[in-house]
């Protein structure tokens, strides 16, 4: 998109970094457990959920309206398995001040892949949920990978920078 003031160009992403709107409702319904759940008089399950991270091409549209994982416009290529990779979740959600937060405990690493169609987004979703419910979309500058490794490093897990925060 042309910046009429400078004559340069804005970078316009079809994918938009955002928290899934559906996720906000689902956490109120207790549909996502990033840490071990506390059993109550109704709920007996105490194990935390499992999450995966799938990559999407630049022409996809994953954003706040995304409600679940979909293979549509997901990247494909040698070494990449549809659905993406498991998110390492070894650090339970915690709080600091009035903010609760959580971040994957390790970088997302897609090892020895060839992804020749440019991609610029990762969708984190809950594989333990019925329907692979979406959590959040994170974007970055468009990339391609050739017989190599794509590593996505998370921000620091603190109340100011964690991947998911509730203030």
């Amino acid at each position, binding site marked *: 998109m042309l910046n009429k003031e400078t004559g340069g160009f*804005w*970078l316009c992403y079809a994918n938009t*970094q*955002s*928290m899934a709107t559906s996720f*906000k409702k689902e956490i109120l319904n207790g549909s996502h457990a990033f840490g071990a759940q506390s059993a109550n008089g109704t709920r007996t399950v105490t194990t935390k959920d499992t999450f995966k991270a799938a990559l999407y091409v630049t022409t996809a549209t994953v954003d706040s309206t995304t409600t679940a994982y979909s293979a549509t416009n997901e990247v494909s290529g040698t070494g990449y398995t549809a659905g993406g990779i498991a998110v390492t979740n070894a650090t339970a959600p915690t709080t600091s001040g009035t*903010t609760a*937060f959580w971040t994957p405990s390790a970088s997302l690493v897609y090892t*020895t892949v*060839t992804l020749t169609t440019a991609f610029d987004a990762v969708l984190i979703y809950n594989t333990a949920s019925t329907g692979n419910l979406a959590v*959040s979309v*994170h*974007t*970055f*500058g468009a*990339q*391609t*990978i*050739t*017989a*190599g*490794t*794509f*590593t*996505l*490093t*998370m*921000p620091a897990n603190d109340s100011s*920078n*964690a*991947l*998911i*925060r*509730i*203030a």
Partner: protein
Amino acid sequence: MAKISTKHGDMDEHLLTKRTGTDRHHDHDGSLHDTADWVEYWHNGELVHRSVHVTLHKIIPEMKPIIAKLVG
């Protein structure tokens, strides 16, 4: 002799031309969104290997509690 995985299989590193770089992507407001450190290996003018390490800087604004106001 170091081996590099390429689209043609593992190749000796000394046969390849290595290029590295860092790209910084900014949002419309000028804030840093992410940093990408890349490594490429070329052979006879052909890109045979590319790895990228992206570090996310821009995070999703936190969800803020909404206080309901009762009127009537």
